[in-house]
């Protein structure tokens, strides 16, 4: 179609889960792929390969260096930050992103990454396939995604179970053996089976979580050692992150990876194809150009949206973007009172639950974690009313019996916009977000139902343990260049991810999702990127 002697068949911007998921089918099809990425790397040594319990009780008094960092920035602002965002080992993941895009945010926390592997370095590893109901608003049906879900699951390795009440709505791909449950989570799951019909009255379904965590050695990655330190990273590579696939790609002769390359902007070439202005992120000016017939954008929802809006000259227009409204709960399982802290365990999702409203139109989705993987002082700081000695005594006694849950509702409950502007030749991205008025009522309803369901399962809600999360605090952004069936939006892409008005430019990351259901979107982003990559390989190779 385009007959220009380009050096590469295709250029991919970004090395996160979407970038590598698109690159793999393209490289497998024999195409020459160039990936441009800033590719920030960890700044210091990773954490030691030992269990949290052993680390906390080690006698040389150096545990704080691992848990908080040499400069103690891991302390952060305890009151309002998700713990994983304060972990010193991952400070580099979000470094420079805001400055590179000139980002300001109001009512929402903006998040993105210039790191190799992107935000997958700090994700929760929850992998839940969208079913047909979750795909409401998508221009594709679930059957279009099924082969890609299967391919991604086989590639990244997902542990979980396919025989519980929730599994039918989480996809039917291959699974590795499930991770062992924390005793408190085991109690919940056992009771959920026994009280299935009663729970259905609340629209509540509980099952094992599915995690991109391997439970047996494979592909140079080691099986999870249950050290409870998931929050501080995984030195054995048991938890999937996109940089693992990046290593695989870099070993392929037809794949070229260039780091320290921030794409400032791209423009259409008169003869076809695109010219990318590339340079270090901190300079704000391009130092070289790269030309390509096909361009794949996987720079993260905010980055991709900014690049597309800029290329379309849609400056100073507020454009829609999606964020996942979230809430958090804390419970104790009294039957576990008196148990000692587990020496070994898994700190990411143990269980998952779905909560339907009365009409079964609106499904909230949550994941349950064992609280032992968190710092007790962090939990104590969130207990209202009580003083530090009382709160720490409560947590010390209850933490082994404690579970925390997050819960998401569809993106329809948030109203968010991004605006791209230029000031003195510098791009500025403004993000504004707020919960809709309906969210408060939905939050209260979910809180009430989850508490009732958990009571049925023998778990008590902790006073003050239910709270709304700040919008964007979990990084679930989407929809800045959504796939739609019609072209009635200023910025959109078709079902194949190709941006309308920018033929040859494909959006493959969260930006392409037109709606977020209650489920965590990462698995669907990977599957959609894989699907678009396969389609693109067919288009280019003819």
């Amino acid at each position, binding site marked *: 179609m385009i007959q220009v002697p380009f050096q590469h068949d295709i250029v991919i911007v970004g090395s996160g889960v979407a970038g590598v998921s698109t690159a793999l089918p393209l490289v497998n099809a024999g195409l020459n792929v160039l990936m441009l990425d800033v590719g920030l790397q960890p700044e210091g040594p990773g954490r030691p390969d030992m269990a949290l*319990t052993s680390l*906390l*009780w*080690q*006698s*040389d*008094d150096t*545990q*704080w260096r691992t*848990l*908080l960092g040499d*400069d*103690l920035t891991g*302390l952060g*602002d*305890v*009151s309002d930050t998700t713990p994983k965002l304060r972990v010193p080992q991952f400070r580099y993941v979000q470094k420079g992103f805001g400055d590179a895009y000139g980002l300001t945010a109001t009512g929402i926390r903006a998040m993105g990454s210039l790191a190799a592997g992107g935000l997958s370095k700090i994700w929760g590893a929850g992998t839940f396939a969208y079913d047909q109901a979750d795909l409401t608003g998508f221009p594709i049906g679930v059957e279009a995604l099924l082969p890609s879900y299967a391919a991604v699951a086989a590639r990244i390795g997902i542990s979980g179970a396919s025989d519980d009440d929730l599994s039918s709505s989480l996809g039917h791909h291959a699974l590795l053996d499930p991770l062992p449950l924390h005793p408190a989570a085991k109690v919940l799951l056992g009771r959920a089976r026994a009280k299935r019909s009663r729970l259905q009255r609340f629209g509540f379904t509980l099952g094992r979580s599915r995690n991109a965590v391997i439970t047996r050695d494979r592909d140079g990655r080691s099986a999870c050692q249950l050290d409870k330190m998931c929050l501080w990273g995984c030195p054995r590579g048991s938890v999937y992150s996109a940089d693992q696939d990046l290593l695989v790609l870099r070993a392929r002769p037809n794949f070229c990876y260039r780091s320290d390359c921030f794409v400032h902007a791209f423009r259409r070439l008169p003869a076809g194809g695109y010219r990318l202005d590339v340079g270090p992120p901190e300079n704000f000016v391009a130092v070289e150009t790269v030309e390509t017939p096909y361009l794949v954008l996987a720079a993260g929802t905010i980055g991709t949206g900014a690049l597309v809006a800029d290329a379309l000259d849609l400056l100073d227009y507020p454009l829609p973007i999606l964020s996942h409204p979230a809430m958090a709960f804390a419970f104790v399982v*009294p039957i576990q*009172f*008196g*148990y*000692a*802290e587990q020496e070994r365990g898994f700190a990411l999702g143990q269980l998952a639950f779905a909560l339907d409203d009365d009409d079964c139109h609106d499904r909230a989705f949550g994941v349950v974690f064992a609280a032992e993987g968190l*710092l*007790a*002082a*962090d939990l*104590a*700081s969130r207990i*209202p*009313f*009580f*003083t*530090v*000695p*009382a709160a*720490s*005594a*409560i*947590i*010390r*006694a*209850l*933490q*082994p019996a404690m579970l925390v849950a997050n819960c998401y509702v569809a993106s329809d409950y948030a109203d968010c916009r991004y605006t791209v502007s230029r000031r003195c030749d510098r791009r500025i991205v403004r993000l504004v977000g707020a919960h809709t008025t309906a969210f408060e009522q939905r939050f209260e309803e979910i809180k009430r139902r989850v508490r009732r369901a958990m009571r049925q399962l023998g778990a008590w809600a902790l006073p003050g343990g239910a709270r709304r999360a700040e919008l964007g605090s979990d990084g679930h952004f989407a929809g800045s260049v959504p796939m739609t069936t019609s072209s009635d939006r200023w910025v959109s892409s078709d079902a194949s991810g190709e941006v309308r008005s920018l033929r040859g430019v494909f959006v493959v990351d969260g930006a392409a999702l037109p709606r977020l259901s209650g489920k965590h979107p990462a698995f669907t982003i990977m599957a959609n990127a894989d699907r678009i990559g396969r389609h693109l390989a067919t288009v280019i190779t003819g």
Partner: protein
Amino acid sequence: MTDSSLRETEIRREMKAMLTYVLRHAPSEALLERSLEALSESDRESIGLPAFAIASPRWIRLLEPVGPPRSVRQSTLRRRLNACSILAETSTEGVDRFRRRSSSTPLMTIIAFVPALLIDVVLAPVRMVCSRLLK
């Protein structure tokens, strides 16, 4: 003594009192130094803890606000106490204050925290009054 060294001495005394309050014993010099390092340059102001709280840190309990902090000093106190708690938990001398490695009976588990809880409930009216000292 210059103003800045006076200020440093004051902050040092306050952080020592807060760590003592969290740990229920005097902190090691290393932990105290760490807590001072944790204070950013923009946050190196003394809260102005009353003398009784410096002399006997257990009375900081009376200064902790019952609800959300209502003044800058109250929120600084809460923020620093949270930081002291995390520093204590991540130190050899304080981890036992926050985490439990041994099992006990359910009754003992409840007994372990109920007294502290009751003290807070009983002292709540006093806290409401005393925390105003940090207005």
